[in-house]
């Protein structure tokens, strides 16, 4: 068997000889356009650009009150309900209905494998109960979806002894820092004294961003200089929390792609620091962005493997994306979705409940069915 490598090797010779011929024709030095669209990595020149003006936006948000947390819930329900949208209207054959359900699940980023198994399961259960209308199909699919969720508590846990430590991880830009701000507000509403640890020492202005959240939620913050060792920041935060009787340390981390092994190693180290006395690490929260596609599952796997996640925070459900990949992650890894982000405000974080999620689905279905009968 001639391998691809061999063919490619021959190909190189070919390409090279062609360049040879081309260059002979043009009598100029062969210029080979780079195979990729990547420019040579140039070092960044020393800064000399003047900052013309700089603005720090005012913080006008007030402290949250207990109970405010619940207010986002209507919005989230809406987002969940959109999962099935209007699939059940009209006069459709059962094949059409199944196709539409399939498409609805795929569009929610549930993934092809899980969608197929949910549909297969639903069809198998339908064969027994023998109802082929929209309501029957929706119910069967719903019960299949329900079985994907793990039976585990979804509230965030505190240790008996203070300080409790929560570590927040995820890829770039998913909403880690914002979620920490919201978590800080939640904990404050619960009468907990909170310190935020600015473990993102890499991204420009990351600590400033966290600091603003600390101010908004009347939490303390421990931060260091850009480029500092994140472990030492978390270590300091825990020390300070223990010394001054704080209840909770929430550690922010720099966004990192799970493919970068050195950064994943750094995170492992961070976890070991967070576990050490006098801290009590009870939560490692993976933040997943609802707009994420199938890569979300890979993210969940890799972060779980590296630092053992205890729960998922699903952000940006206020947008048009449906976040099905978090469900796929829960189904595969058995790690519960604990919280849902539904906006950029301090109160836009709500507890996740599978039943509410499914109730929302069902309400929608029933409504559709009723309006069909009118």
């Amino acid at each position: 068997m001639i391998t691809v490598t061999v063919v490619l090797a021959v190909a190189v010779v070919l390409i090279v000889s062609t360049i040879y011929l081309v260059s002979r024709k043009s009598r100029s030095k062969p210029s080979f356009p780079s195979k990729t669209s990547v420019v040579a990595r140039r070092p960044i020149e020393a800064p000399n650009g003047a900052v013309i003006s700089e603005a720090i936006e005012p913080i006008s948000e007030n402290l949250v009150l207990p109970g405010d947390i619940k207010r986002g819930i209507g919005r989230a329900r809406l987002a969940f309900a959109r999962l099935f949208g209007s699939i059940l209207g009209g006069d459709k054959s059962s094949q059409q209905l199944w196709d539409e359900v399939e498409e609805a699940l795929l569009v929610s980023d549930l993934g092809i494998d899980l969608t197929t198994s949910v549909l297969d399961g639903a069809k198998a259960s339908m064969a027994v109960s023998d109802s082929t209308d929209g309501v029957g199909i929706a119910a069967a699919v719903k019960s299949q979806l329900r079985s994907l969720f793990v039976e585990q508590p979804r509230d965030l846990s505190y240790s008996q002894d203070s300080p409790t430590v929560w570590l927040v991880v995820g890829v770039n830009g998913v909403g880690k820092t914002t979620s920490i701000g919201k978590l800080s507000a939640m904990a404050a509403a619960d009468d907990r004294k909170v310190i935020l640890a600015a473990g993102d020492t890499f991204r420009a202005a990351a600590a400033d961003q966290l600091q603003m959240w600390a101010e908004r939620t009347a939490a303390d913050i421990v931060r260091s200089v850009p480029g500092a060792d994140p472990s030492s920041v978390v270590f300091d935060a825990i020390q300070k929390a223990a010394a001054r009787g704080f209840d909770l340390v929430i550690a922010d981390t720099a966004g990192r792609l799970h493919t970068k092994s050195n950064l994943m190693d750094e995170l492992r180290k961070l976890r070991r620091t967070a576990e050490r006395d006098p801290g009590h690490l009870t939560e490692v929260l993976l933040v997943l962005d609802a707009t994420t596609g199938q890569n979300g599952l890979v993210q969940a796997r890799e972060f779980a493997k590296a630092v053992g996640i205890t729960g998922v925070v699903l952000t940006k459900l206020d947008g048009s994306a449906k976040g099905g990949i978090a469900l796929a992650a829960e189904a595969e890894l058995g790690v519960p979705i604990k919280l849902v982000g539904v906006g950029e405000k301090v109160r836009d974080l709500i507890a996740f409940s599978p039943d509410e999620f499914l109730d929302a689905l069902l309400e929608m279905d029933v409504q559709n069915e009723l309006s069909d009968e009118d």
Partner: protein
Amino acid sequence: MFDNLTDRFEEIFSRIRGKGRLSEAEVDAVLREIRAALIEADVNVGVVRSFIERVRENTIGEELFRSLSPAQHVIKVVNAELTNALGGENLKISYASRPPTVVLMAGLQGVGKTTAAAKLALWFRHQGRNPLLVAADLQRPAAVEQLRILGEQASVPVFSVPGDPVNTSSAGVEEARRIGRDVVIVDTAGRTSIDQELMDEVRKISQSITPNYTFLVIDAMIGQDAVNSARVFNDALALDGIILTKLDGDARGGAALSVRQVVGKPISFVSIGEKLADFDLFYPDRMANRILGMGDVLSLIEQAERTLDKEIAEKGAKKLKGGKFDLEDFLEQMQQVKKMGPLKGVLSMLPGVPKEIRNADIDERELVKVEAIISSMTKAERNNPDMIDGSRRSRIANGAGTSTAAVGTMLKQFKDMQKMMRSMGMGGPSPTKKSPNRSNNKKKKRR
């Protein structure tokens, strides 16, 4: 970014290749698998549906059953459709005749707009321009400060005033005009496409600064929602192109395909790392080539299996990898390749061959001359071309019926070739398997 997709297709096709006939059921099975592969790569379900329909229309039918190799036919149709879906030219910026050229950046939250704005500014600087960055994201805490720091790193000034993002944006463009910057890049806050108020705001920004270029920044990891969001942003802002970020991860990037298909706007730039220089124009035709090439590599393999002497080919490959490829090997391989047919035809089957080379006029007789020159050398000379001095040169020229100058040129260009082979990464994994976009720099700590 499409490496995974490419691998999947390769696997799917390998099952039907070599089959004399394909039943309709077999074609169906292949299409189902292609569908799954595309959906798994985050290509939008609707886009996949019409893609599969088009492929089906073009495969099932008389032509399929008339064709000598039905599998090849299917592969060809799939590839043609893919190229069609991705294809197009890369962006060529035309600068405003009355500067500054105004660039507006928009997108969902957390996609990497601010970083992309700074990277774009650095890119413009490398084009010899003098950009100004405008921080009009007054929403996210410390976004202005973030851009200020990044601007400093890129040696590009940053402008911002507190208050209203619409005012900040137009004041920024005004400032660029006043201080004579010829490009101005406006970074805006992230927004979800269904947030009416914020969509109105960005529309107002666009109206007030009338950008020459509006880019939607999209995260390569985005799933099915890509097309919805892109559509809404396009309706509001009339996009010129897409900037695709976080391509250094392992996301399959199907959004790139769907967005182009649905919104009709090309990927203009790609961002492939956290360093500011990890950013460049996107070349859709090259990407399409890579996918297209994959299918044809299979036929190339088939052809190679039929015509090539396995041992010689493998020996050549080994030498290439070891960086010990000499004139002797070159001659051997050239003779092999000649067996596969005209060079141009073979080249067209190769993945990643730049257009300039694919379309070059190739005079096959030139190859004959090269062959003659090498054949006139002794074995020792072929192994070590450095030993070829003046007298050897004229002997070789005599033998090959050409001038000593021609021999000299050939030797020099062979040296260049060797260098090129080295820089093309021979010795690493095969170029189709390893994404050149992905830098896995374990040694270099980024912080």
